[in-house]
């Protein structure tokens, strides 16, 4: 059970960061669900392009990229620009964030498919109102160590300030309890079967 996320918060305040930037297509050739952390924001992180066969050490680090700089190379929380994760449905984008160590992403809005994918992998995606986001952002700019997220209370805590965020219970419960969707849905097998019989009978061409 996870009830708190706290750690270094990094900021990448660019709007419309698409999932191709979070993880480029080249790294989608893996058939595994893990091992994508080295390729997070690959195009912005290394001097040379690469593939799954090329060791990242050979590609040169771009020192000016925030996630390459201490302490942000150990970030657990990411503050991102508006419409974060738009574009391709690749779940590899969430796997890359998770494998890098990011447990929560804060933004004013997210791409719809990316947002869903986060909660299938226990990555917490938090939508904030612009004024709340700005408040958190300016605080984190001064002190990247002080942000913590209380899951059960749906609350951001910065020093003695608290900001309540809005999220559906079913989503936050997944992160708290590391729930698996297939297990949850299969409890409704009988209802699905009953629906299916009715549905396929009324639409026999299916």
């Amino acid at each position, binding site marked *: 059970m996870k009830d708190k996320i706290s750690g270094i918060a990094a900021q990448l305040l660019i709007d419309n960061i698409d999932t191709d930037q979070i993880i480029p297509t080249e790294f989608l050739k893996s058939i595994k669900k893990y091992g994508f952390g080295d390729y997070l924001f690959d195009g912005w992180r290394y001097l040379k392009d690469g593939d799954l066969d090329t060791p990242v050490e050979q590609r040169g680090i771009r020192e000016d990229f925030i996630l390459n700089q201490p302490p942000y190379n150990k970030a657990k929380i990411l503050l991102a620009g508006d*419409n974060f994760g738009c574009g391709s449905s690749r779940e590899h984008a969430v796997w890359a964030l998770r494998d890098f160590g990011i447990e929560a992403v804060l933004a004013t809005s997210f791409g719809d498919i990316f947002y869903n994918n986060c909660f299938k992998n226990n990555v917490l995606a938090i939508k904030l109102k612009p004024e709340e986001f700005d408040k958190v952002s300016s605080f984190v700019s001064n002190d990247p160590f002080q942000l913590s997220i209380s899951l059960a209370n749906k609350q951001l805590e910065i020093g003695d300030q608290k900001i309540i965020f809005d999220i559906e219970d079913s989503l936050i419960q997944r992160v708290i309890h590391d729930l698996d969707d297939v297990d949850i849905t299969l409890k409704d097998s009988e209802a699905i079967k009953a629906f299916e019989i009715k549905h396929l009978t009324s639409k026999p061409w299916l």
Partner: protein
Amino acid sequence: MNKTLYDKLWEMHAVNPDSDGETLLYIDRHFLHEVTSPQAFEGIEKKGLNPWRLDSNVATPDHNVSTQRGKMMDIDKADHSLSKIQLIELDKNCKKFGVTQYDINSEKQGIVHVIGPEQGLTLPGMTIVCGDSHTSTHGAFACLSMGIGTSEVEHVLATQCLRVRKLANMRINVIGTPKHWITPKDVILHIISKIGTAGGTGHAIEFAGEYIESLSMEGRMTICNMSIEAGAKVGMVAYDLITETYLKERIDENDPNMIEALNQWSQLHSDQGSEFDKEIVIDVTDLLPQVSWGTSPEMTIDFNDDIPKTPKTKKALEYMGLENEDNLLGVAFDKVFIGSCTNSRIEDLRATAAAIKGRQKAKNIKEVLVVPGSRAVQAQAEIEGLDKIFIEAGFSWRDPGCSMCLGMNEDKLTPYERCASTSNRNFEGRQGHLGRTHLVSPFVAGLIAIHGHLPKDLSEYHYER
């Protein structure tokens, strides 16, 4: 209660609405491909499950396949070892679980969003999902279709359902009759530039209005395909006579089931007076051909317009190498790509052929790739002699696949190459590391291929859609 098309499709498939806004939505059709499915098959195998309803699933390799493989290919000879692993894995999983696959050598193979409708697998009123964001394409058939992640692919295989929240309703009314050289691609690019790449986020978009009603199914697919570039994972068009005519070529009209189907499908439209959370009107009467200048599809302008220069556009202009250009008219291109699930259907190839009118590829253009969306499109184009027109112009006529839309096979841009592309995304690095993508229609792509740049005056061109 007057219902929208989206409301109707939702209600037809809702198994049990949950109190917290989450609904189990029954899925009628599930398309799979080699890139987003291996982890999902592994997931159900680990849980000891089988696909819930086997015959709802259809798979085909498209994302990373070679477009120079010829009619018969031995997967073991695939160029890149990692791509080969995914092709072998798809083959293995389909055989293991009994999933129908149009494999690499099948005459039905192609880009998943091209073959679905073409093979009669996409039918009106269906819920359709695939681990690919351009699944919105199938909404052209009055379907509720959307892209999903790999965990959801596993979930659909295991349970035949998605756990989802209902989206808000949005309608875009497209009115007016545009000039003859304007294609559906110009219209959807224009819409995205107007509403922004997050303009449809959280919404299911229904495209309506006289312009949409006038379009062929191919044109409607191009429009719905790029809903996701406007932020909406669902795009739709109501069922009408044009839909019916397209389907009648693919179904047995005398089959009693199909008579009933045609009857039910005729209800697949938004009721008069139904309410939308967001509604906008786009007039295309004076629309000019559209070209993207930046690194997001919303960064699109009229072909002869000034490039916007503000502090916000600086990063994109630097990436695109356009800091010193006032407009796109004098900019020389290096490559042209005609293909992708947006623009690789027969009408698209005809549009490109009409633009080039027997002329040769310009000297500064290193390569023009023409990649048909499917084996069926390829065969039709060859019957019409389009392949010869392209080959005589110095273009490269290829085998079907996603190709340079995402550069997952060997079709890629090298750093700083500038490409006119009929695909859907101009993101940084999308077509190859540091490559520069300009999204255009297949007609404009043809013009750039023969001129080497955008022509200043389009009045001499007459393309009838």
